[in-house]
């Protein structure tokens, strides 16, 4: 089957505007602008059942319909901050199939009546930033962006913004703060961005992958899209496979594909002689799932992973851990990451990630005592339910599930210190 999102794998030069157009590019946008009312576009996307690919899985069309019709202007912001460890799907799209993403962004803007759209890129995406600016310039030349598009009154401009390298700026309200030139810290909600977002105006924030789904949905229709994936999680998803597998990489597969199929059919299985031990389904923000048959046979859709395994699918950044990995070492890595990335706005996360990192460092440095395992767990539990945004909660997932399912690894780490990996 040919790709829907990673189309450059089938059409190598699709990052050239002419090639993209020759392959049907901007037909969907033109169709929307010239033949559909914005409300029709919203309804079509609602009907497709498309859900946000940034992690929360919220139905995209529903989110758009929250924007109040009596407050203007509206803005659309593409979230290209992609900073979750183990997540590298948006990058592949942006590097290789940028026009499909931009077309998606333009469709979203038309649907909510925005005349200005923004792309917020993670700080390290500098070359992507330059390429995207060049693409936008070409779209302006081609009069696909600007005033009076396709001879109508519709106008649209796209601006890009390069962040300064902070994971928290992927959280949508911190992103907005950063986009406004302020310190990237999450905002208090309510009000939600749909009502008071960028510059205090109604704003839609969508993930890059979410937006890249829009041109094919408009082109081929909601029914076609719904025929892919599962009933509640329709469509395709790019699964970012990494860790202890033979062929790590992005795999565009229907939602509902099992872990087993991803790992063994597509990912080439594990290295010779290694046994699978754990799975993280949503990057560093995941629970560590013991990789038993039940887990391996769980379909990767938003409902099943949550129901079967008590963990969110999130951004579907699947990290495979084999029997050579000591989970305490892994948890030391994730806690270090969250300590480094906590924005510091709220007490439990600022202090809790700092404290957890100290304990895990102690463990890895051979200076921990057995009580430290429970202390670590207690600190994580004591953070839960108290943080201002999800980052703080994310930071506790691997800790709590790791100790719950792999306590011997922690005990070994306490005994053996740095030798454990």
């Amino acid at each position, binding site marked *: 089957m040919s790709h829907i999102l990673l189309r450059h794998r089938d059409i190598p030069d699709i990052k050239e505007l002419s090639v993209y157009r020759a392959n049907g590019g901007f037909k969907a946008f033109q169709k929307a602008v010239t033949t559909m009312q914005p409300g029709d576009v919203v309804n079509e996307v609602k009907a497709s059942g498309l859900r946000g690919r940034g992690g929360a899985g919220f139905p995209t069309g529903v989110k758009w319909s929250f924007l109040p019709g009596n407050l203007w202007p509206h803005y659309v912001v593409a979230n290209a901050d992609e900073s979750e460890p183990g997540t590298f799907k948006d990058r592949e799209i942006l590097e290789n199939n940028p026009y499909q993403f931009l077309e998606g962004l333009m469709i979203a803007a038309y649907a909510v009546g925005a005349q200005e759209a923004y792309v917020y890129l993670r700080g390290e995406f500098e070359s992507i930033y330059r390429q995207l600016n060049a693409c936008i310039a070409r779209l302006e030349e081609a009069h696909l962006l600007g005033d009076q598009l396709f001879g109508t009154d519709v106008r649209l401009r796209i601006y890009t913004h390069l962040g300064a390298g*902070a994971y*928290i700026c992927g959280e949508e309200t911190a992103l907005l703060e950063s986009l406004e030139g302020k*310190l*990237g*810290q999450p905002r*208090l909600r309510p009000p939600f961005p749909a009502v008071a977002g960028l510059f205090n105006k109604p704003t839609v924030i969508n993930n890059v992958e979410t937006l890249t789904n829009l041109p094919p949905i408009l082109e081929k229709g909601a029914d076609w899209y719904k025929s892919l994936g599962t009933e509640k999680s329709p469509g395709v998803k790019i699964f970012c496979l990494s860790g202890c597998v033979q062929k790590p990489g992005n795999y565009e597969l229907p939602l509902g594909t099992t872990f087993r199929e991803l790992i063994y059919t597509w990912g080439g299985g594990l290295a010779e002689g290694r046994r699978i031990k754990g799975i993280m389904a949503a990057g560093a923000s995941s629970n560590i799932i013991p990789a038993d048959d039940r887990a391996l046979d769980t379909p990767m859709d938003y409902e099943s992973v949550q129901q079967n395994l008590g963990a969110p699918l999130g951004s579907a950044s699947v990290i495979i851990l084999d029997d050579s990995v000591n989970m305490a070492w892994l948890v030391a890595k994730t806690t270090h990451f969250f*300590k*480094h*990335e*906590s*924005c*510091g*706005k*709220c*007490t*439990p996360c*600022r*202090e*809790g*990630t*700092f*404290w957890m990192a*100290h304990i895990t460092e*102690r463990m890895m440095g051979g200076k921990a005592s057995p009580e430290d395992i429970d*202390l670590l767990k207690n600190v994580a539990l*004591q953070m839960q*339910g*108290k*943080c*201002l945004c999800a980052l703080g909660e994310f930071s506790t997932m691997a800790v709590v599930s790791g100790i719950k399912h792999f306590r011997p690894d922690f005990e070994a780490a306490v005994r053996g210190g740095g030798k454990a990996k």
Partner: protein
Amino acid sequence: MSKMVTLSIDGRSVTVPENTLVVDAAKMNGIDIPVFCYHPKMKPVGMCRMCLVEIGRPMIDRATNQPVLEDNGSPKIQFSPKLETSCTTPVSEGMVVLTRNDKVEAARKEIIEFILTSHPLDCPICDKGGECPLQNLTMRFGSKEGRFLFDEKMHLAKHVPLGELIWLDRERCIQCARCVRFQHDVVDDPVLDFHNRGRSLEIMTFSEPGFGSYFSGNTTDICPVGALTTADFRFGARPWEMKPAASLCAQCPVGCNLEYTVRREAKSGGATVIKRALPRQNESVNEIWICDKGRFGYHYTQDPARLGQPLVRRDGELVPVTFEEALKIIAEKAAHQPFQILAGGKLSTEDLAALRGLAQESGGKAWLHTYMSGGFTPHYGLSADANLGALGQGDAVLVAASDLHEEAPIWWLRVKQAAERGAALIVMNPRPTRLKKYARHVIRYAYGEESLAVAAMAEENLALAGEEIRAAAETLKSARNLVIFYGSEGLGLTGSKGLEQALADLLERGGFTGRENSGLIGVWHAPNLQAGFELGLPPAEGLADLPAGGVLYLAAADPAGDDPRQAAYFSGREFVIVQDLFLTESAKLADVVLPVLAYTEREGTFVSGERRLQRYYPALAARPGLKADFALTALIAKSLGYELEGRAASLALEKLAASQPAFEGLNYLKLAEVHEQWPQVGGSDLYYGGTSYANRQGLGKHLSRAAKPEPDAAPLREGIRDVPKNALRLVPHTRLYDAGSTFAPSRLLDQRRARRQLRIHPRSAEPLGLQQGSQALIELEGAPFTAEIVLDETIPGGTALYPRSLGVPMNAPFHAVVKPVFDKSAS
């Protein structure tokens, strides 16, 4: 009236206005929910998570939209799975809040534990120790033991100057952002912010000089830990060693309520001294804020240069004598002479009344030492229940000829807030000021044309008026209230009188006189000029207006210090008495110099520019031998055979109240009345207000409206005649950090103090050969002076601004030739 909402907090049914936050609803009903980042004067941010409570709401059946009921008929309550921050959650009907169950108590303990993992807990050497919300909440909710390894605590810089006024201890900061939010949202000096992220989040300042804000000291009050301290007080004393004393700020006419905290110490030779000034809550005056001038300005009261003994002139020299001797000499020399008195606006109401009494008894006259005219304010000023804090949508505020941010910072803040609440702000000034940003109408006029501009608005002489004036006049037509501030930017006494009359006329014509929250406010250059105007003392810029002959008696007035040319008026007097804190230039010319108590060592009252009569209490015991001004004046009177009330300030005020209608019914007990104020501050909980003090000693009372004054027939304008060729117009303006005798001793502010500079537009400077930073010579007959040139594009052409109090001997605009001073070394 807003809609009321009924909810239950810890089983008690309470009713509060809608939109009230749960944390406030609890506090209003005597239930303390601990907070760190929340402050009722600022928007909630929900950062610290200290205020978590359990909240349930009535369950609604989706199908019927009706509440779901329990078996017993009561509404079924659905509790959220997570605790919620009570500082960010508004109340709703039927809500059930639990603030002290196990879950909530555990959360509090856990948040405190988190905060303490990175906190040094150096309470024994912390300035805030003893009045620290973190300390108190730790004692109340914290865990007995710490689980965080002491060795792993972070160590950060403990003495970080954010400029020379405020110091930061990075270890103690709990990242609550109160200081940052105060600077951004309350006072609009966004000079503080966070830098970095996570546990490395730290406070930084990016202004030059550091923490450049007239309100910076307030952050040390609201900081819930000892992270921010003032250079003035840090390491000066422990809170429990000090006694508080209610007082007022004596630096400007706002009349901010203060609390001085004092202690007896070896360092000061065993004397009791003031260690710091803190705001005392008065929601209709200063809320819980004061400006840095008020906070750091008290040092003059304990300056070593203060006079301790009377001086008399013998053989041309001033020599110390006893009070008895001095009074004897006065009795001899001054008997049967009329007293011509010049009284300063720093004197108390009682002092001014006594001076007026002596003048009357002796057949002389008492004058108020001022370059601002204010005779219209007793009738046109505020009265009854006026409150700037109540101005908002539908009201108008006019600020004329005043850079309010420099002249009276707390009024600037109050006006800014009124504008933010929706009041229409009209700003009239010849050059832009900080208020411009909040103004609905900005009216520019040329220096000297202020009364014409007002008259154009009042008389609807709109054909002549510019568009802004017309638009402002239109706004005034529909305004419910109009409060007018007028200052002294570019004005001397004559121009000020003209402006005052024009503004009174504007109030009159608009029908605002007598309305509850309307009136005229003079932005005086002294705390109690208002009392002088209430007593009907005529204004005098200097001694020129006082009749020659008789006894000259100066109290808290130093005309010779302001202008050396005034010395001429001292000769030709029978006898000169100067009563002051210091040996001023005028005192040096006197026959008798009488020292007095500072206002911090005695009782008294000031009348604020809003006509609020307020009491101040002695913070320190009277210096041995010295007396308050009114008591001394009464002694002089007595030695001459006149009877004045000199026993107690309270009696002096009672006497005044009996004869002066505006003061009718007021006495010291009435002024000491208080009522409950919101937010509640200064309690032992210290949750909200930090180190601001609760007001237990009196909120003061407004004077009632005085009789209508007679306007001068002719329009008054600053007389500018005989303009020399090539002359610039030099106009005075006021800078907050001045060099006056009651502020200069606060050396801490030297770096920020105004200097003798001439601000001039580059285009006016160029043809005169004046360059940025160069020295210029100003040819003023009899008193030439030099000043540093500062190029400033906001200054109108042909004009140069000079700051008051810095040795330019002129109160009113004047014309002078300005030339570069040539650098001799260069030639």
